[in-house]
């Protein structure tokens, strides 16, 4: 999805170098380019679009602060994803001890919450609840593969891990989801 029209043609590396050279306004191009691309990942990891919004905003500001450390400006997207990922994991650690989230408000895309709830099938709601109760690592691989549609190879490249370890994580998630859905059905 290209939200920038002709300006979006500028490669990430050119934009990053321009920002580092002092043209801070061009950072807006990167924000517009990637704000929605990773919003769904953050929303599914954190359980709500509001939390995703906070995480994406914070990740962009952190990325700007650390931009000089982006060793491969042409791969800003991959570098930014890791910053957002760390933010999501930190947020999950922070909220881990808090009361169990009200999953009736989980996995919701924003306005029209009540309408959307009504439309969601029972299985969808059970699955959303089950996914929210996976470990952060299991949830991440489930989201990247089955929500974002990435292959194991693509996930492994993005996270710097191996396909077998991802499969092990995912297969445990499958079993856990089945168990949770059966318990609640």
């Amino acid at each position: 999805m290209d939200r920038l029209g002709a300006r979006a043609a500028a490669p990430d590396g050119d934009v990053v170098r321009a920002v580092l050279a002092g043209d801070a306004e061009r950072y807006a191009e990167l924000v517009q380019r990637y704000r929605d691309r990773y919003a769904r990942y953050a929303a599914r990891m954190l359980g709500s679009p509001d939390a995703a919004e906070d995480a994406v905003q914070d990740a962009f500001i952190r990325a700007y602060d650390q931009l000089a450390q982006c060793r491969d400006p042409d791969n800003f997207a991959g570098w930014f994803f890791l910053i957002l990922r760390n933010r999501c994991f930190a947020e999950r650690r922070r909220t881990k001890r808090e009361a169990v989230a009200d999953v009736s408000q989980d996995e919701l895309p924003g306005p029209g919450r009540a309408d959307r709830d009504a439309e969601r099938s029972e299985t969808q709601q059970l699955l959303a609840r089950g996914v929210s109760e996976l470990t952060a690592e299991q949830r991440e691989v489930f989201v990247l593969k089955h929500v974002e549609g990435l292959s194991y190879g693509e996930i492994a490249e993005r996270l710097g891990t191996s396909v077998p370890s991802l499969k092990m994580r995912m297969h445990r998630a499958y079993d856990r989801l089945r168990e949770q859905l059966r318990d609640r059905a």
Partner: protein
Amino acid sequence: MTDFHPQVKQLLDGELTLADLPAALRPEGVEALRLLAAVDREPVALPSTLDARVLAAVRARAARPSLWRRFLAPREIRVRLRPWTLVPALAAAAALVLFLSSPARTPTASTVTVRFVLFAPDAQQVSLAGTFNQWDPAATPLVRTGSPGVWSATLILPAGQHQYAFVVDGARWVADPGAPAVDDGFGRRNSVLSL
């Protein structure tokens, strides 16, 4: 027993089709596919006000002297030794950070060799997590030095500001008591290193 059969997991992974499964496994396969069909893939759109908030923060930072541009200029490498400081939480753990120019490698004008040292006599393993390694506690282990209880790691870091913490025994995140620290926004303190 609620585990999916391994072949059903292959079905979920997209490596097999329902027709590839033995007849006895097909009901389980159907159940598994029903689970995947319930996955919510609806896009999430963030409000456009997010862009403005990010840009406001960026402009505020850009209006201040830029750390990275200030430190990209050639400069003299300073040696600064921080005194060891007791960490009450670690009961006799202390840390120092030593900045030094590397005799083995020639740092460029925009990199600095930094030696991180932690005194943690009871630790079994110590590592360093920070902005320079994507906060990966497994990326930068410290090694025991010749002095009992003293762990160290030497890194070449780009000039600029870095945040970091020591990770003791894979679980305890400890700020460097000899360095300034900031709240990381998630209830922890990160040490700050300005090069």
